[in-house]
């Protein structure tokens, strides 16, 4: 049994492997292996999204608790590692997972485009003369290629907004995340960007959560039905949780009034945090 890639009568191959990389990199050379990588990095990124959301719920406890949470992240693994070492390790791992997730998605999209590419096809989508009637494919699965880039653009915006403080300017106070979030989300256009992006994220996660079981081959008729419910549950929780921040700030329920510490008084925040 040798893999033959010649097709004397029919079509020409769309993809030929020039050389075989050593294990385990050879897994990434195949489409199925790439789907495994997409699913595994998807699980990692999903874990990040959930932990990030839960951590951000500290904003409802107040500026001191959110500051304390931020300090906890910087001091992760304290006693064993230098300060912020583990946090940087997590950040690098996260960036790596993002790159692999994006690369696998993009390269597989290209393979599929090539497999459909011909005069009769337009931009990788098959063009039949009659209106293509999707039966099973849902809105989420068909828009993965759009919700993905939207989330990526939003991620860059989000980093520039709250990590680097590019357009908050003097309003941005390093060490007072509560104030930064309130200051940023108080602007209606920014709040709208957050809402739109998080709806896209939830749609992306809805298909991703179901699809990853299929890609990893985790399949058992006993619990196959539960995969759809899990996808709905996870996407729903992330949608409600993440939308709560822009919505509640815009509604004025989370604001800078009645703070124990003045805006930007990081020393006061640290002092209050120590009291806990």
């Amino acid at each position: 049994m040798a893999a033959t890639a010649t097709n004397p009568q029919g079509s020409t191959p769309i993809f030929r492997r020039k050389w075989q990389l050593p294990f385990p990199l050879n897994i990434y050379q195949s489409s199925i292996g790439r789907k495994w990588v997409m699913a595994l990095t998807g699980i990692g990124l999903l874990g990040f999204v959930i932990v990030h959301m839960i951590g951000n719920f500290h904003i409802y406890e107040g500026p001191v608790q959110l500051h304390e949470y931020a300090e906890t992240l910087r001091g992760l693994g304290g006693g064993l590692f230098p300060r912020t070492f583990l946090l940087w390790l997590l950040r690098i791992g996260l960036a790596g997972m993002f790159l692999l997730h994006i690369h696998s998605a993009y390269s597989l999209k290209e393979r599929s485009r090539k497999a459909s590419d011909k005069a009769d096809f337009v931009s990788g989508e098959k063009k039949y003369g009659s209106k293509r009637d999707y039966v099973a494919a849902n809105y989420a699965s068909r828009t993965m290629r759009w919700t993905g880039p939207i989330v990526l653009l939003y991620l860059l915006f989000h980093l520039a907004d709250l990590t680097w403080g590019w357009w908050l300017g003097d309003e941005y106070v390093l060490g007072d995340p509560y104030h930064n979030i309130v200051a940023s989300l108080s602007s209606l256009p920014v709040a709208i960007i957050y809402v739109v992006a998080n709806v896209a994220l939830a749609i992306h996660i809805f298909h991703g959560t179901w699809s990853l079981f299929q890609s990893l081959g985790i399949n058992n008729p006993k619990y196959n039905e539960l995969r759809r419910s899990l996808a709905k549950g996870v996407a729903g929780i992330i949608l409600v949780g993440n939308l709560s921040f822009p919505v509640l700030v815009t509604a004025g329920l989370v604001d800078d009034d009645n703070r124990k510490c003045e805006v930007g008084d990081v020393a006061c925040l640290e002092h209050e945090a120590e009291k806990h």
Partner: protein
Amino acid sequence: MTQELNLTLQVWRQDGSSDPGHFETYAANGISEDMSFLEMLDIINEQLIEDEQVPIEFDHDCREGICGTCSLMINGQAHGHEKATTTCQLHMRKFKDGDTIVVEPFRARAFPVVRDLVVDRSSFDRIIEAGGYISINTGAASDANLTPVPKEAADTSFDAAACIGCGACVAACPNSAAQLFTSAKLAHLNLIPQGQSQRFERTETMVDTMETFFGSCTNHGECHEACPKEISLDFIAFMNRDYVKAKVKNRKLAGQT
């Protein structure tokens, strides 16, 4: 009492692989609702021959829904809108009088159009050649039931073996992926004891061959809906699992758990 239908057909005509192809409109009048879709095309062709025109070419063989030769995208759906039905078993009573029906070939880069509605599906043969068989010496004919096969596994293997290789899964897939076909052919052999000795070698070579011609799965599930034999998406998951196992497994310990 049978009713007669008057239909308008828009059929893809393509004079060989180098021709860009176009749609042509035909009137199909006085079609009996007891006809199959292919019999309706036969009637059109008789008329075309009488008018000294070139008849429409389409693939067909057994006309019993078991050979996998007939194809056709009918109104944008592989083998038409009826579930679990091949084009030859699709009856005209499923259409309404006055309907306009668009008839096209299955489309994918791996399925080049030969002429009109006939496509070359030999890429599937390349996948089968890569491992869709059992090639071990089995000696003389053994007693029946000598090899115990769990009933459930035998049933599932049979479900997979129901695949007739028509290519509807590829035609319906927006990615032109052949995952459903390949996974059915793999599961058919990989789920029973007789197929175990070559299981991982087979999975690796057949998947690698598939990937040279076809796109990548995005788990839409369109293939399963289009499949005239209702092959389950579960087989795709089995294939994904076995493929990475094949890459990781130490085959010097094959057969050991």
